[in-house]
């Protein structure tokens, strides 16, 4: 079931859309039209790819032909580099939608014998632009000129002239530059570019790579200064336009069932608020996934789309396990109401996960999202990062009016419980599950620790998981929950 997209604010400045998912949202519609944008970052950060996508999408989707002056790669290499993304440069070049001019700058082959300027470069560019009536230009990476020519005073004057020339010809240009040690670019290109500067970053910590994009400067457009995670996959670059949205999202008053009548009963007989976030934490085997599955089944029964992110088990394993507790989710999968997306938490970094999650939500536009479990994300990143990522994700889900459930595996007395406490402040509802052994009999307990905006039951109940499904037993008097870390004190500390 697809919901309509939220309204997008129309740009006030003329923009040239990049066609890159997320980037156009972050920049309010794209790059400044007829202006020069500087794209900087260290080697391998994805700037050449982003620049190339700007040209390819421009040619394919927006009817704007583009010239790539490449100072690093020959046309053949460039074609091979982007072929894996499904970009057929050869066809675009043949149809005069794209022109690649490889510029070789090699100091060893050029002796300087007196005054000169870069008129040759201007003439080549003008010739290329004219040949295909280009509207977009990429210069990647123009800094190669500094490596090939020694007269840097002349070079700087010429670069300034070049950027003016691009603007005079109303070309939307992307100029790439290598990150410097203390400056955005090694040769200070940012001094010449007034309109738009975008920095890319690629960090590898503990063998996990994260890519981030930051709009450093964008004249005449309000932009987030946050770093946005981005992803490079088979479809190219996608930026996650998630930022802290100043809590401006709507707070619906209608409710959605938890899928367990007795649990609904504990929450004013109505269940969760729509578009709220729910944390289900508990030790191993306490029934977190079963709780999530019940929630999903109820949503599917209402005809709402669900998206289940599985970080621990394969979809088939989840389906099998749920069948054993009387839940058959397969019909919903067949009806395409329920989508599973399984990922190994360590396969990509936290930002990568966020990007992937975001991308899929944008694509499927579900009403309910389950992330099972968030604990595994902690294993790839610190608690702080997880919290900041979840904050962005929760904000995004709320804006999209999606009800979300996050499961969190805790270990008694383990720092993981602190994770639960840290992220719980982002959550509207926190349900705690726990094993206990009063009088030697193993028992599962369920407790609604908090649920904002409603008079929920605070009494622990026994959770009974059988082949008939999940049921709640009587109110427990001898419960262990109130005395644990996850007691009311923890809530106060977390909020």
């Amino acid at each position, binding site marked *: 079931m697809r919901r309509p997209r939220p309204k997008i604010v129309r740009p006030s400045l003329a923009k040239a859309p990049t066609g890159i998912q997320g980037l156009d949202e972050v920049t309010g519609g794209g790059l400044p039209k007829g202006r020069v944008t500087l794209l900087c970052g260290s080697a391998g950060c994805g700037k050449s790819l982003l620049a190339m996508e700007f040209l390819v999408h421009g040619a394919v989707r927006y009817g704007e032909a583009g010239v790539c002056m490449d100072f690093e790669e020959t046309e053949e290499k460039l074609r091979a580099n982007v072929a894996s993304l499904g970009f057929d440069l050869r066809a675009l070049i043949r149809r005069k939608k794209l022109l690649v*001019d490889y*510029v*070789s*700058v090699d100091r060893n*082959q*050029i*002796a*300087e*014998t*007196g*005054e*000169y*300027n*870069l*008129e*040759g*470069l201007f*003439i*080549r560019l*003008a*010739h290329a632009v004219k040949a295909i009536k280009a509207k977009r230009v990429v210069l990647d990476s123009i800094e190669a*000129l500094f490596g*090939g*020519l020694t007269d840097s005073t002349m070079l700087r004057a010429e670069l300034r002239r070049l950027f003016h020339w691009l603007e005079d010809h109303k070309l939307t240009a992307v100029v790439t530059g290598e990150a410097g040690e203390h400056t955005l670019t090694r040769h200070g290109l940012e001094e010449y570019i007034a309109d738009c500067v975008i920095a890319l970053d690629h960090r590898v910590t503990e063998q996990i790579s994260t890519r981030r994009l930051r709009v450093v400067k964008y004249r005449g457009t309000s932009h987030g200064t946050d770093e946005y995670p981005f992803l490079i996959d088979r479809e190219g670059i996608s930026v996650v336009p998630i930022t802290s949205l100043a809590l401006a999202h709507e707070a619906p008053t209608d409710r959605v069932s938890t899928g367990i009548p007795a649990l609904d009963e504990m929450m004013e007989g109505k269940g969760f608020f729509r578009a709220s976030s729910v944390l289900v934490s508990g030790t191993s085997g306490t029934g977190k996934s079963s709780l999530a599955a019940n929630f999903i089944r109820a949503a599917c029964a209402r005809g709402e789309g669900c998206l289940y992110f599985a970080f621990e088990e394969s979809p088939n394993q989840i389906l099998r396990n749920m069948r054993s507790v009387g839940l058959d989710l397969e019909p919903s999968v067949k009806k395409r109401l329920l989508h599973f997306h399984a990922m190994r938490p360590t396969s990509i970094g936290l930002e990568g996960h966020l990007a992937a999650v975001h991308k899929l939500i944008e694509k499927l536009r579900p009403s309910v999202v389950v992330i099972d479990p968030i604990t595994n994300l902690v294993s790839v990143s610190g608690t702080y990062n997880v919290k900041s990522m979840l904050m962005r994700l929760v904000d995004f889900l709320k804006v999209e009016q999606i009800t979300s459930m996050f499961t969190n595996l805790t270990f008694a007395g383990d720092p993981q419980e602190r994770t639960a406490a840290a992220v719980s402040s982002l959550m509207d509802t926190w349900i705690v599950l726990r094993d206990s052994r009063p009088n030697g009999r193993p028992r599962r307990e369920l407790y609604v620790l908090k649920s904002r905006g409603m008079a929920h039951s605070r009494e622990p109940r026994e959770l009974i998981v059988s082949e008939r499904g999940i049921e709640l037993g009587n109110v427990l008097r001898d419960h262990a929950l109130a005395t644990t870390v996850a007691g009311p004190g923890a809530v106060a500390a977390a909020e």
Partner: protein
Amino acid sequence: MKKSSARKRRPAKTSRSAFCRLRLYIAGQTPNSIAAIANLRKICEDKLRGKYRIEVVDLLEKPQLAKGDQIIAIPALVRRLPPPVKKIIGNLSKTESVIVGLDLRLAR
């Protein structure tokens, strides 16, 4: 960059007697272009008398030629013969650099 392997190499002797084909790229009649043409003629007369040919290409008229010789800076001089191809840039006012760049040291 063009490479010519077809011709036999006769190093020292050749460079003394080989015929020089030079192509000078300019863009319009700018002071640097005019200076480059004058400087080049003088050096050639001095070092290569009778054994050179200069072709002046104005890129404003033939912009499509810039790509082939990888021209960025103007003025640019390309020694097309004898091989290997050599390229120097500037208005050719530094005579010594031109002689070194075009490898005319042995020429008389």
